[in-house]
C-alpha cells in the first residue's frame, strides 16, 4: 500500500460553529510534496469546503503563510518529508482574527503598510522635474536598504511576534521594515513624516526584540534589525533635540 500522511487542519465555519475544531485528513505521501500540495489534494479530492489562500506555489507571492506544527511557514516551502511520518498540524497564521478555516483578516496589516508612506517622499521645492531624469544612487546606497525591499508581505513575521499577538495595534515587523526601507533610501526625504507612525507608542517602542520575526522570514528581510536600528536613530533624534533645540534640520 502506498504511504500516507495525516494532516490535522484548523476548521472554522462561522455559519455552523462558534468555536474552531480540527479535522484530520489522510493524504498520499510524496517526497516532492509540500504542505500546500497536500492541502490542494484535500480540496480537490476529499473536502471541497476547505478554505485557504494561495497563488504562486513558489515562495514569491506570500499568500500561503500558515502555522505548520506551530511555526509560521510558507506552506509552499514546507516539505511533507521533513515531518514524515508524524502528523502535520495546520492552522491560520497566529495573532490574526480568523475569518474561515485557514483564511484570516489582513485588512489591519494592509492599513499598517500604507500608514508608513511606502513611497519616495521629497520635500517641497526639492522635487526634480521629470526632464532632469531619475535620482541617482550608488550600489553602496542601494545596499543600505535592498534587503528590506525583498519583503513579500507574507505576514509570517507578524505570526511569529508575541507582541502583535497580545496587541493587534502594534505596527509590527513588516510595516516598520518597509518604513526603514524608504528611510534608508538616499533618494528619500520623508523620514520625519514616517516618524509620526514609526516612533509612536504603537510603533517601534512596543517591540521587545524577541527576534523571531527575522528568524521566520523567508526572504531574509531582517525586520528585527530594522526595528532596532529605527530605535537607535529615534533615540539619537531625541538627544539631539534635547542638546540642540534650535537645530530643526535632521
Amino acid at each position, binding site marked *: 500500500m502506498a504511504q500516507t500522511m495525516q494532516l490535522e487542519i484548523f476548521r*472554522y465555519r*462561522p455559519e455552523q460553529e462558534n*468555536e*474552531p475544531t480540527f479535522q484530520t485528513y489522510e493524504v498520499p505521501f510524496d517526497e516532492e510534496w509540500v504542505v500546500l500540495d497536500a492541502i490542494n489534494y484535500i480540496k480537490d479530492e476529499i473536502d471541497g469546503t476547505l478554505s485557504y489562500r494561495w497563488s504562486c506555489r513558489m515562495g514569491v507571492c506570500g499568500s500561503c503563510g500558515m502555522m505548520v506544527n*506551530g*511555526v509560521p511557514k510558507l506552506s509552499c516551502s514546507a516539505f511533507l518529508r521533513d515531518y514524515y511520518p508524524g502528523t502535520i498540524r495546520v492552522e491560520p497564521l*497566529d495573532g490574526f*482574527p*480568523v*475569518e474561515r478555516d485557514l483564511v*484570516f*483578516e489582513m485588512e489591519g496589516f494592509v492599513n499598517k503598510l500604507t500608514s508608513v508612506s511606502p513611497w519616495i517622499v521629497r520635500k517641497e521645492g526639492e522635487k526634480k522635474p521629470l526632464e532632469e531624469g531619475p535620482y541617482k544612487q*550608488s*550600489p*553602496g546606497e542601494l*545596499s543600505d536598504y535592498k534587503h528590506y525591499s525583498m519583503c513579500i508581505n507574507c505576514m509570517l513575521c507578524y505570526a511569529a511576534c*508575541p507582541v502583535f*499577538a*497580545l496587541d493587534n495595534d502594534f505596527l509590527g515587523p513588516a510595516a516598520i521594515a518597509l518604513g526603514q526601507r524608504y528611510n534608508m533610501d538616499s533618494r528619500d526625504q520623508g523620514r520625519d513624516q514616517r516618524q509620526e507612525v514609526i516612533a509612536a507608542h504603537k510603533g517601534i517602542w512596543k517591540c*521587545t*526584540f*524577541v*527576534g*523571531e520575526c*527575522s*528568524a521566520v522570514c523567508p526572504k531574509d528581510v*531582517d525586520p*528585527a*534589525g530594522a526595528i*532596532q*536600528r529605527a530605535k*537607535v536613530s529615534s533615540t539619537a533624534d531625541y538627544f539631539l533635540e534635547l542638546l540642540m533645540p534650535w537645530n530643526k534640520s535632521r
Partner: protein
Amino acid sequence: MSYRRPIPATWWLKRRPYTMFMVRELSSLAVGGYSFFLLYLAWKLGQGPEPYAAAIGVLTSPVSIVLHLVGLALALYHTTSWFNVTPKIIIVRLGDEPLPEPVIAGAHYAAWIAASAVVAWIILGI
C-alpha cells in the same frame, strides 16, 4: 464574524525561542538585583570592618554559593544573548561593504575580556 484565538498565559512555553526570550528578559532581574547587592556590600563596608566581615561571612554559606552560581549563569546568558544580537543594530560600513557580523559581535567579546582582565588585575594584583 471573525474568530479571535485566545492566548494562554503559557504562550512563551510553546516554542524554545520564546522561552529563551523570557529567560533573557528575566535574567535582567538577576543582573539588576546583583547590582543592588553590591551596593549593599559597599554600604556595609562604609559601616566598618566588622559589619563588612559579617556580611562576607554570610556569602560562604551553601545557599549563597548556589544563588551566586545561578546568578552567574543568568548574567552570562544575558551578556552573550545581547552581544550576539549587536550586529543587527550596529552596522559599520567601510566603503560599500558593511563589516561582517562576527566582527561586530567579536569586538564586544574582545572588549568584555579586556575589561574583565583589567578588573582582575586591579582586584587580584596579578
